[in-house]
Each structure stands twice: as structure tokens, then as C-alpha cells.
């Protein structure tokens, strides 16, 4: 269906400033970064971005619906450390420990969701509170680090399938599921509608409570999953650092990817691009021996510059009407308009 394609093209062009920056950056590192453009390194970037991708896509959904979830970093820590506890202290099987870890994430999402969607507390405040509370709870399990989960569990974090790391497969599955949900289910359309205008969605008969509730649960579960993948990859569950600051990285990636704070806008493709952008930026800078401090500065700058680019392209498009959505170039209509009366 060509109309559909045009919508895709529009999405793509909307993400264009980021796409262009991505290509430029990638080219730069490929030329100047020693060992950047090698299969091993790129696979490493993908592996390290997997957890971020899962969390970013999930909070991206929450943000498209017009809400926000800041608790993900601590949910990740809590789920990871809880699973680590179950494996090392209670000698549970890794599979059950993982399931419980994800379920704990979903449960915290459920609490957030009920408070925000049904009791109508501010999402910012509720999830900020959860961020602090769950970090405390993580320390209550242990102030230290659990190690050594056994070889079976390690496969989950660093094993390969068809020579692609398993966490990358999982992240890909999450991206595909989220795309299918947003584009090809009724619920996905409802998410956008709620994000654009709750009142109009409400008058159209959409359940404006259940949708954010569901999304908060998804986001909690995704953070739990990211926690499990991470402890499996590093074979340790450090309660002092697991997931710390992760909510900000995820938020950065989501905003880079063109999801707006106001809701109603964004795509999984854009978010994925945002995640990879951050991952490659960090990897490339590390390869080029840029200090950690400067890497952090670069991350922040990337976000600000991308926002400026987007604002600039929005301004341009306003100046030019919606021409950039037209498939053909703009010459003909202008010529018509310029004919003297």
C-alpha cells in the first residue's frame, strides 16, 4: 500500500537528523577508530547495547502514551540482585530465578501503573519515588555483590546462537514485538491516541486507564529482563551499581530517537537508532582513548544537538508547509505559486 509507505517515509524523514548524524559518526569512527570497524567490536557494541535497547523500547512505549517511567534503573538492579540471591543463596535453578526476577519487575510496574493510571498521581513523582525505594530494597537484600552463577546461566548473557549473542536476539525480539504491537494491534493505535489527547481518546471510548497500566507493567518487566541479562553477561550482581543511572541512558536514547515528552509520537525504529547511536558513540570514543569524563560530556551533547537538529527541521518544515512529507520534490508547487497574478 503506497499510502502506508508514505507514512513510513515520513517517519524516516522525521528521524532523519539522527540518521544523518549516525551515518556521519559511524563513518568517522570507521576511518579514525583503530579496530572499530571489525566484526568482533561491532558485535560487542550490539551486546552491550542489548539491555539498554530493551529498556529504552519499553519506556519509549510509556512515553508515546504521554507518561514517563524513571524507575527502570532501580527495577533493573532489584530484579538482577534478587535473581542473584535466589541462585547463589537459595540455590534456585537459573530459569526460575530469572522468571521471578522479571515478575518482580512487572510487579513494581503494576504498582507504578495503578498509582499513576488509576489513582492519577504524577508519573514523574511516583516513578522517581520507586527509583529510590527499589534502590533501597536492593541494598536491603545485600549491600554486596553476588558472583558465580554457574555456566548454565552464563549462556544466557554471553552465549551465541547463529554466531549472534543471545542478548542481542532477545533485544531484537523485543523490538519486533513492540513494532508489531504499535503498528498492527488495536492497542497500539490506542497508545498513540492516549498520548495525543487523553480527553479525545476518552470520548472515543478508549480505556485511558488500562493502557498506561499495561505499559507500566511492560516497562517494569522489561527492566527486570534487562537486569537478568546484565547479571548473566557479567556473571555478577553488584547491588551498588547494577542499573544505576540506566533510566537516564534509556531516556536519552528515547529522546534521541524522536519520541517527544508530550507523547503521541515516536517509533521503535527511532528508539533503536537512538540506542545504537549512544552505544557506538561510547564505544568509538573509548577506542579513541577519550576519557570517561569526556565520553559523558559527549553523550549529553549528542542529546542536546539532536534536539536542536530536530527543532531546526521542524522549523524548516513549518516554513515550507508540509512539503517534506510530499514524495516528489518541491519544485513544481513553488513554480505554480510564483506565477505572477
Amino acid at each position, binding site marked *: 500500500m503506497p499510502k502506508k509507505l508514505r507514512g513510513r517515509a515520513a517517519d524516516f524523514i522525521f528521524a532523519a537528523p539522527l540518521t544523518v548524524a549516525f551515518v556521519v559518526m559511524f563513518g568517522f569512527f570507521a576511518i579514525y577508530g583503530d579496530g572499530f570497524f571489525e566484526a568482533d567490536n561491532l558485535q560487542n557494541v550490539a551486546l552491550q547495547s542489548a539491555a539498554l535497547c530493551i529498556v529504552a523500547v519499553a519506556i519509549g512505549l510509556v512515553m508515546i502514551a504521554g507518561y514517563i517511567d524513571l524507575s527502570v534503573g532501580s527495577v533493573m538492579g532489584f530484579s538482577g540482585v534478587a535473581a542473584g540471591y535466589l541462585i547463589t543463596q537459595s540455590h534456585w535453578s537459573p530459569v526460575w530465578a530469572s522468571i521471578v526476577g522479571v515478575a518482580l519487575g512487572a510487579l513494581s510496574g503494576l504498582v507504578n501503573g495503578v498509582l499513576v493510571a488509576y489513582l492519577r498521581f504524577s508519573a514523574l513523582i511516583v516513578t522517581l519515588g520507586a527509583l529510590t525505594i527499589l534502590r533501597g530494597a536492593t541494598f536491603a537484600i545485600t549491600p554486596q555483590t553476588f558472583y558465580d552463577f554457574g555456566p548454565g546461566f552464563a549462556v544466557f548473557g554471553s552465549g551465541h546462537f547463529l554466531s549472534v549473542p543471545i542478548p542481542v536476539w532477545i533485544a531484537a525480539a523485543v523490538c519486533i514485538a513492540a513494532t508489531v504491537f504499535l503498528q498492527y494491534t488495536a492497542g497500539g493505535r*490506542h497508545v498513540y491516541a492516549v498520548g495525543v489527547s487523553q*480527553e479525545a481518546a*476518552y470520548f472515543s471510548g478508549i480505556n485511558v486507564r488500562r493502557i498506561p497500566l499495561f505499559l507500566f507493567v511492560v516497562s517494569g518487566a522489561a527492566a527486570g529482563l534487562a537486569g537478568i541479562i546484565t547479571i548473566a553477561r557479567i556473571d555478577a550482581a553488584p547491588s551498588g551499581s547494577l542499573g544505576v543511572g540506566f533510566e537516564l541512558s534509556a531516556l536519552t536514547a528515547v529522546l534521541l530517537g524522536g519520541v517527544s515528552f508530550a507523547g503521541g509520537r515516536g517509533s521503535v525504529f527511532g528508539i533503536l537508532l537512538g540506542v545504537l547511536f549512544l552505544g557506538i558513540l561510547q564505544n568509538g570514543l573509548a577506542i579513541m582513548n577519550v576519557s570517561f569524563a569526556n565520553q559523558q560530556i559527549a553523550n549529553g551533547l549528542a542529546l542536546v544537538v539532536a534536539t536542536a537538529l530536530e527543532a531546526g527541521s521542524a522549523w524548516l518544515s513549518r516554513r515550507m508547509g508540509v512539503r517534506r512529507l510530499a514524495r516528489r520534490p518541491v519544485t513544481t508547487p513553488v513554480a505554480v505559486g510564483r506565477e505572477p497574478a
Partner: protein
Amino acid sequence: MAVSIRGLSKVFGGSPALSGVDFEVGAGEVHALLGPNGAGKSTLIRCLSGAVQPDAGTIVIEDEVYTELSPKQAIEAGVAVIYQNTSLIPSLTVTENVFLGEELTRWGFVRRGTQRKEAAALLHTLLGSAEIDPDGQVGSLPLATRQLVEVAKALSRANVKLLILDEPTAALTESEAHIIFDRLRRLRSQGLHIIYITHRLQEVFEIADRVTVLRDGKVALAGQSVANLDATAVVTAIAGARVVHPPRDEVGASRPVLTLSGLSGTRFGPVDLEVGAGEVVGLFGALGSGRSELLETIFGARAPDAGRILVNGHAIDPRKPAGAIAEGIALVPADRLRQALLGELDATDNVLLPSYLKLALFGFRRLAAERRVFASAAAETSFPTALAHRRGRQLSGGTQQKLIVGRWLRSARPIHVLMMDEPTQGVDVGTRSELYKIILESARRDGRAVLFASSDHEEVVALADRAVVMKAGRVVTEFQRSRLTEDNLIQAAHLDGAEGPAGNAGWRQPGARHA
């Protein structure tokens, strides 16, 4: 000197909205700007107000020649606009809105007391006896009151030379519109240039001196004096063809589909009313008569205080719109921009929103079925399918309204009771009579009960089988088709003068945004 426009052109997304328009307004003239939906009327005035930059052409305002205007330049040149889509900020008070951007200050501090007094005086001279609380929050005011505040805001500026009103009366009854007309006549005699956009023809003959009709971005009738025109000529110029109201069959006595017994709620009641299968009932009443509140209560958006709602004989208690829709009740709300339109989503999403879940199989969309539903809704409302993938906010006002009506007219859910609040607001004359026909047909064919509220007596006479006149929240009279005339309606609604506008409390809101 006059305000004049030469060869104005503007292209949106490859399709021209204005192509080479010439237009002129004299001092002390009310110039009516007419045309079908999407003709480019709002685009033309947005060029004048600096909200849109034209691609070509010149704008002359009192000896100054512009090829494009910034909003600031436009204000300095003395252009004041009352937009079709109200531009007031809901979270601010009436006073704050009136003086927004033009605050009265001393040493940088806003002089709240002075502002409040001036706003109150302005509202008083503008509206005569009607009271609007200057401290009231705009978001809680009914649509028509907001429109009046908008007028006050435009007139609060010192040096207005060109006043533009884009469908200011779309949601007002005749007596409310007269408040605005009186004011316009006075301004005209002070030598203002006034451009007046409307889809209500009788207003043209009441207030306008000259008429220009736009069609497809071109001038179809240029600056004709109203004295040389009659209604048919104007309608023909707008619609491109003659518009006839089709003959209609009478509905016989039928089983009641919607029954209200002693229903009362915020600002209305108790109301007893029955709407039969295939019957179209019009609620006519002034601002604050409670008609919108009644519809919103039936739709579950407000809680009733007492009484019962029955659909097909079963008592229902819809606690929210989703519940009402599940019972087969639909509402086209009065406030299109806030309660109906999803500006960032495209036209198909806007039509299909209530149908997505119903059409889906295990939650997964069936695109072919969706296309069919959209196509039939578009066909019934003569929505141009070329615009199917435009975003809601990029469509002209009347085109947006078609989407919202189409959303329920052809919804995939079974609708037994179709309620509409100002169903044809902003819709052009040609399409309007087609919509009436389609609404009637769908009522008769599907045995639906149609209940609509309107402030336009012409609309009530054209569409309703039976009219119910509401005043101060109660039903005061009822007219069967045989006695349904414009005179009867107006008399019944305004016997004791219009009621004051009231606030909008008592909402069952979906909740404020938390992000």
C-alpha cells in the same frame, strides 16, 4: 485606504491551498468570506495574521506593502484575529487570557487589579447583561462563552484596524450571535475593516456589505455587494451547484430506543424524553440551557444526580464513555478540538479510533476491514480521500468535523443511539445538507435513535422530526414536525431572554496529564 491582497498563493504538501487570490476590504466594511470546506479561507487569514507565510503575492495594509508578515508585524499593522479554533489558554483565567502577551504592567509587574477591572468592563460592554466571571478559568467555560472571551480579547488591543473573525458563531445561538453583530456594527461605523467568515448564510445578509466566495483556493465570486445577491446565488457560488433539501418521509409511532426518565445532573433536569427507532430529535436551546450537559450525561462523561437512562427498554448506567459505547450510545462532542480530534494522528486514525478494537481479530488489526470502514465513512461525509493520511490538525475545520461525524456514523460497533452536539459546526452548506440526508437515512435504515443538540435553528428545522426546546436545564416545549418552524423555535427559546452562561463543573474527567 483599504486592506488589499494581490495574487496570494500558498501550497501545502504539494497541493495548493490558495492560488492567486485577490481580495479587498474597505474601511467601514464588513466583508464576508465564504466558501466550502478546505477552500482556503482560514489559510488566507493566517497569511494576514502572520501565522502562515504565503509563497507568493502581496498584502497591503494602509499603504504598507508586505510580501509576508510575521505575527508581530501583523499585530503592529493592526490586524486582530478571532480564530476558528479558539486560541485561548485553558489553564489561565478569563482576565489573563484577554491580556495575554499585552499585559498591563508597572515596573515589570503585572497590574492584576487594573487588568481585572478593565476585563470586566470590556466583557460588560461587549456582552451587555450576560455575565462572565473575569476570574473564571477559561478551560471550565462552555465553548460559546469562550468564543465571546475570544472576541473581547481581540478587541482589547488599542490600534485594531483590520478585525478578522473566522466562524465566530459556529456554536452560538442567534441571540448570542446578535451580541457579536451589534458590536461589529459599532466597529464598522468607527471605520474598521472587518472580514467575516461563516457557513451560516443568513448571517451574511444580516451583517455583511460585500461577499467574496473562495473555491479550491481561487476566487469564485469577487467582492459582490450583498444588495445585488440573493441566498440561492450565494449558495450556488459556494457549493458549485444548487442545494435542495430532500423531501422526507414521516416516521410513524415506533418503539422507543432511548428513554430518559427524570434524568437530572449538572445544570439540567429533571428531563423526561423518548426517542424512537428511526426518529431524529433536536434539542434547541441557548448557551447554558443544559443541552450539552444532558448529552454528556447520557454518554457517561458526567455523573447523573438522579433519574434513569434506558436503551431499548433496559436501564443502563454508563460510568464512562467506553461504557456508553458498549451499550450502543455514541456522541459527537461539541468541542471538536479538545474532545474529539486527535490532531497528531492522521485522518484514518481519527475515523477508526472507536472501531479498531471491534475490527481486530484477537487484538490484531485487519487492515482490509479497516480500509472498508474508512472508505464508507469518507464516502458518507464526502471526506476527500486524498487527505486520508493528513494529520488531523492539518485539515480545515469543516473537514475535521466530517471525520468526527463519520467516526460514529459508520462505526464498526453497533450504535443504537447516535447523539451529536452541534453536528455540522463549521461544515459548508453543500455538505451540510448531504449530511442531514445521510443522518436521516441512517436513522431510518438502521432504526437508530438520533438525538442532536444545536444552536442553529435552521439546522433543527432541516434535520429534526421533533424538536425539544430547553431552557435553564429543563424542557420547556416540544414541536412536532408539523409545527416545527424557525419562528416557533426562536420564540420558545428566548421568551424570557437568554440565560447567563454557566461554568462547566461536574466533569468526570479522564484525569490530568501526568508526565
